[in-house]
Structures are given as structure tokens and as C-alpha cells.
């Protein structure tokens, strides 16, 4: 009995492990990796450090259709000549490329808020990085669950 039980568990574990390997192989060529996103971010930021805060990334936590997801980035900034947002960059973990968009604004924007619609290829973490006029970088990240991924499939 105990032997059979042990066997059954190990078979289940084997199947789980096998399916994990299979999905891993299936998704690997399509998506960028977390490491690729980190590399893209460090290329942008350079020697400066990125601090969490001041930025709010607005994304729905559950996405039905990854082909058009409403994304907005808001930054807490007075937007004056002396202290304003220079650029907002958006990155993803598991899309084919880590880059999503770059927005360049200045004191004439009046308010640091931009919105657009993006594609998400998988459930993943989306990161927004804001570049201030004083050279500091601030960020926010949101975890999203995507039920229908953006099209990578055949047409």
C-alpha cells in the first residue's frame, strides 16, 4: 500500500515536472526573459540607481485580452523648469522584447501623466521607470494576469 502510494505520487510528480519542462520549452523562444529586461533597464539607467516610488503605473490586475491593455503612468512631480519629468520608460518581462514605449515630456506638459494601450504576451510584471530632470530614476511595477495573450500565433 505504502509502496503503491509512493509510486503514484512519484508518477504524478514526474508528469508535473514533464509538463513544466514542455511549457518552458514552448515559451522560451517567444518571450524575452527577466534578465533581458534587467539588462535593458541598466542600459538606460547607467550607474544611477532606481528607487521605488513617486511613479504610479495604472494597469488592470486581470487582463481579458492582451492585445489592447489600457496603461497609464502618473508621476508625482511639480513639473516646473527646475524639477520635472524628462522621460517615462515602460518595460515588460515576458513580451518578445523588453521595450514597450518611451515618452519624453518636459515642464510644458503641466502634469506628468501619459496613457496608451499595450500588448501583453503573458502574465507578467510590467515596470515603469521615470527619469527626472535632476538625473534620478524612480519606478513602479505591476503584476498582471493575462487570460488571452497578445497574438504571437499564426495568422
Amino acid at each position, binding site marked *: 500500500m505504502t509502496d503503491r502510494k509512493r509510486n503514484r505520487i512519484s508518477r504524478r510528480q514526474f508528469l508535473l515536472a514533464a509538463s513544466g519542462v514542455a511549457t518552458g520549452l514552448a515559451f522560451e523562444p517567444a518571450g524575452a526573459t527577466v534578465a533581458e529586461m534587467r539588462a535593458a533597464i541598466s542600459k538606460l539607467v547607467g550607474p544611477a540607481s532606481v528607487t521605488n516610488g513617486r511613479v504610479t503605473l495604472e494597469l488592470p490586475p486581470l487582463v481579458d485580452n492582451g*492585445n*489592447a491593455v489600457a496603461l*497609464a503612468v502618473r508621476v508625482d512631480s511639480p513639473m516646473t523648469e527646475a524639477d520635472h519629468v524628462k522621460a517615462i520608460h515602460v518595460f515588460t518581462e515576458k513580451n518578445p522584447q523588453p*521595450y514597450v*514605449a518611451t*515618452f519624453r515630456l518636459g515642464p510644458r506638459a503641466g502634469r506628468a501623466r501619459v*496613457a*496608451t494601450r*499595450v500588448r501583453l504576451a503573458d502574465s507578467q510584471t510590467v515596470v515603469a521607470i521615470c527619469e527626472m530632470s535632476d538625473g534620478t530614476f524612480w519606478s513602479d511595477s505591476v503584476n498582471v494576469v493575462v487570460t488571452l495573450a497578445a*497574438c504571437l500565433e499564426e495568422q
Partner: protein
Amino acid sequence: MARALIMVPATARRGEIVEIKATVAHPMESGFRHTQLGTLIPRDIVTQFVCTYNGVEVFSAEFFPAISANPFISFSTVATESGTLVFNWIGDNGFSVTESAAISVS
């Protein structure tokens, strides 16, 4: 050619922050999709968007394939003086669309 839609308030008070929304008709083919025969569909996206206010650039954006079809963008600007806002989208295969809107500031 390609159709662009812009929403800019027609009038504004001086110093008011106005919200601008813009979209252009474009498939934004990502360059990662294949046909049923397995050939890669080449990338065809809008790569740049620039907004100028009376000739001065106030906002610009760079797009990557992760932006949805018919790229939509919303941003804001301070209404400084009456004049025109010019919107320009540039993309692959020589894609270029220019659209303008007038704003009167009191």
C-alpha cells in the same frame, strides 16, 4: 491615407492644463508573427510620435511592437498661447502622417 483622430479642446484659459488624445489608424504588425506557411510577417509599426505647439516640441514618444494596433496616446500640455498643435507619426516603410488642431487661448 491613414486616418488620424485627435481630441484637443478648442478653447482654453491661459495657463490651463489641457488633455490631448491622439490615435492613428495603423496595424502595428509586430514582426513576431508567422503566416500559416511559417514565413515571418515583417515588422511594420509606428516608431515615433511628436507633438509641437506653435513650432515648439512639447511631447514625443517612441513606440515598440508592444504598442497595440491603432496606437492611442494621451498626454497633457499647458495652454500658453493661441495657435496650432501639429501631430506627426513616423513609422516603418516610410509611414508618415501629419495632423493639426487649432486652440484658442483667452
